[in-house]
């Protein structure tokens, strides 16, 4: 491997955004026939670096060479001409077109869908994809859409592939499939870069890891010669423990009782089908399921944001008094004296106001307080200052708009505000999605401390490993139905994975 010419050499790459140094003299080699895992905390500059390779940003300083020849990449088109293709976290597909149409979209030359379909089939056979060229995008699952994105890039002749957190939206089974394909492509001599936060994926998939911290290149090494602990320490810059605490439930008694909850979306599709369960105080109830199995509707129904077709959601207070939550909006629920906190999946679009600063975002929950027509502006800013200290939010000031913060810090602002309410029920959706190790553990600790306070926590997650380590009980959703509720202690990953794809989880064979 030593004498090979690198497919991509990035030398001395520097990129600034205003005063922030996103990449600071980074050196990186990418080789053919190898899967490179690019690791780093949020805001360490991984995506920025890869965006410069795929022509989205232009570096302030430094050079890029492909197969030893210096090149200039000014646009994604230049990148494609050099065989570089990037698969982003957010797919860029036209919903009403078929897979084949999406794949040839924007290519020069005559439109020959038949020839295109043939070529797509060829690519699929080579690497083990499953794509129906004539299927419309809107009929596809998230993983199928991702496959189309990858085929699109290959179709254009890319042999250097960059995948930005490709497994964030996949089930364990889908992830395995994707990894098999990536290995096939590697064996075919392609260069593959994968950005991920999940250590076990790095260990099982990659050949080499490269680590960035605060925009600087820290080091690279063969995956075989390192381990999760060492990589994490390099990313963070100091030793960290990788175990998630799971304290025993504190005096659990029913807090939220959901009975036969049925929800339809605007189009009339059933999103939740007679869902029943109880969430106890002092306990973390995990919700597992393929994305789109009704998790969003379930949380929003409890929070008073989702119209319900039938069923009941009752809140049980400490004295055993029951209150129906259905038919009440979040303000009415708050007025009832139910301290219900909700960390939604869409942080900037729903939980926070992206263009407002930290203080004003803290005010979202408290602005009604006090008599008179004026808002109290001092208290929320004071709270913002406390949150910045307590949760180690890195921000220039509390007057900074939250959209300028990195993903992890945005989440800390949101979680901080929601727990400042002293909730008795805490709903969280994908609380650590896109967060680095350090921030994730801070969030787990915060959730655990709420559990110890006697809060009923409902934790919707996508990383099964985390769900199995953190939750006291796990409710598995499958197509809007409850596939089963298993105790978190002793549950098997495979078993829960099966329940996610099939009601009850028993396989046919």
């Amino acid at each position, binding site marked *: 491997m030593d004498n090979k010419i690198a497919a991509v050499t990035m030398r001395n790459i520097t990129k600034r955004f205003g005063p922030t140094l996103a990449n600071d003299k980074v050196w990186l080699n990418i080789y053919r026939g190898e899967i490179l895992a690019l690791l780093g905390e949020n805001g360490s500059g991984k995506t920025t670096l890869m965006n410069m390779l795929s022509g989205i940003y232009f570096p302030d300083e430094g050079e890029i060479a492909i197969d030893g020849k210096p090149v200039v990449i000014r646009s994604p088109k230049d990148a494609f001409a050099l065989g570089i293709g990037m698969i982003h976290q957010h797919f860029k597909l036209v919903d009403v077109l078929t897979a084949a149409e999406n794949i040839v979209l924007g290519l020069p030359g005559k439109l020959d869908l038949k020839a295109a379909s043939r070529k797509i089939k060829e690519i699929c056979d080579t690497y083990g994809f499953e794509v129906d060229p004539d299927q419309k995008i809107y009929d596809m699952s998230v993983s199928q859409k991702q496959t189309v994105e990858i085929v699109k890039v290959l179709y254009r002749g890319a042999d250097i592939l960059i995948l930005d957190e490709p497994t964030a939206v996949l089930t364990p089974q889908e992830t395995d499939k994707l990894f098999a394909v990536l290995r096939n492509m590697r064996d075919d001599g392609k260069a593959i870069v994968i950005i991920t936060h999940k250590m076990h994926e790095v260990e099982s998939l990659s050949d080499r890891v490269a680590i960035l911290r605060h925009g600087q290149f820290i080091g690279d090494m063969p995956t075989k010669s390192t381990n999760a602990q060492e990589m994490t320490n390099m990313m963070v810059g100091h030793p960290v423990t990788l175990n998630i605490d799971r304290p025993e439930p504190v005096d659990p008694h029913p807090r939220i009782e959901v009975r036969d909850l049925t929800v339809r979306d605007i189009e009339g599709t059933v999103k939740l089908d007679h869902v029943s369960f109880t969430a106890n105080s002092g306990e973390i109830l995990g919700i597992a399921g393929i994305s789109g199995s009704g998790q969003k509707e379930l949380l929003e129904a409890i929070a008073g944001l989702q119209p319900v077709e039938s069923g009941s959601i009752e809140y049980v207070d400490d004295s055993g008094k029951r209150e129906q939550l259905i038919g009440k909006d979040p303000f009415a629920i708050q007025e009832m004296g139910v301290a219900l906190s909700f960390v939604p999946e869409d942080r900037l*679009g729903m939980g926070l106001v992206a263009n407002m600063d930290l203080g004003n975002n803290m005010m979202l929950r408290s602005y009604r307080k006090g008599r008179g027509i004026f808002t109290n502006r001092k208290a929320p800013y004071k709270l913002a200052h406390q949150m910045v200290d307590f949760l180690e939010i890195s921000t220039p000031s509390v007057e900074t708009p939250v959209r300028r913060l990195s993903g992890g810090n945005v989440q800390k602002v949101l979680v901080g505000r929601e727990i400042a309410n002293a909730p008795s029920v805490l709903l969280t959706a994908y609380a650590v999605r896109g967060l680095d190790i350090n921030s994730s553990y801070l969030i787990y600790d915060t959730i655990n401390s709420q559990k110890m306070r006697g809060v009923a926590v409902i934790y919707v997650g996508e990383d099964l490993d985390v769900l199995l380590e953190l939750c006291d009980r796990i409710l598995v959703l499958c197509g809007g139905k409850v596939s089963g509720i298993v105790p978190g202690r002793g549950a098997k990953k495979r078993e829960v994975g099966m329940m996610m794809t099939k009601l009850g989880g028993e396989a046919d064979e």
Partner: protein
Amino acid sequence: MNNKTKTPLFHVSRRAALPWYKTWAIRGAALLLALVLSGIITSLVTGEDPFAVYGAIWKGSFGTTRKFWVLLQNIAMLLCVSLAVTPAFRMRCWNLGAEGQALIGGLASAACMITLADKLPNWAVILCMIVTSLLAGAIWAGIPAFFKARFNTNETLFTLMMNYVATQLVAYYCVVWESPKGSGTIGIINPKTQIGWLPQFPSQKYLLNVVVVAVVCVLVYIYLNYSKHGYEIAVVGESERTARYVGIKVEKVIIRTMLLSGAICGLAGLLLVGSTNHTLTTTIVDGRGFTAVMVSWLAKFNPVWMILTSFLLVFLGRGAGEIATKFGLNRSFGDILTGIILFCIIGSEFFINYEIKLTRGAGKEG
């Protein structure tokens, strides 16, 4: 084939927030550039001395005491309509119906003056004028707001169409109330009794409007920045989903804010009819409903900056008129100069938000 690609000479990147004095230096430079540019164009196209033209523009607003008060009055009225649209704009609700809302407010005032003059004492007529004009403006904005909140109709088109309805209504009543008969216009209302004429400060005819609008400006500023309603408006404008998430009733906020917006427009109509003109025509609002959009945007929806932007637009407009008469130039020439100045000022915002970086060692290294 890749040898031909050259390193680009420059690339654009986003700036961090600049200190206030730098942003104002950029804006000042833009204004200077605008003056130099329009000076060059003036001498090239008309052969006039650019300094004489600038002088005339200045005199158009500050030449005489009377011109100065006309300037103030025009600023006040433009500012009033701009203040009206701003709460809606902050909510990202594009109320382009200020023209019609002010006109319908004016119609309500005129109706009171004409029909109640011989039935009620002067103070009662004025009270009726105030109530009905504010109400009329509010209703005119409330109709599109109701449909937006209820059926998610497009408020831009709806409010625009309401303008035409208002104009036609006023045109109709101009004939009904025409005086003298056959003129097709209303003429000065109650010229002898002066019933329904808003009281004036003894020293200055236009002072009342200026004072009223100044008070409204302060109130709107406080309402938007410090009240609970103002906070709700900002949240709904930024993200309706976030608003619902914290239990704000979005429909209610939309209707409430549009009612306020319309009511302030109605106030503008009241001032135009009851204080400034004492008559009603279909063009009495004079396009301010649309100029207000620019005033509000230029000031980034800040009521205090809007004093400055409405001054700028009125000043340029008066100047354009002055050079048209003084140099015998077409009035459009003044508009060209206004266009150049606005282009430079708005364009300067780009350089405040972005910087252009020259690439070092372009195209060398190999």
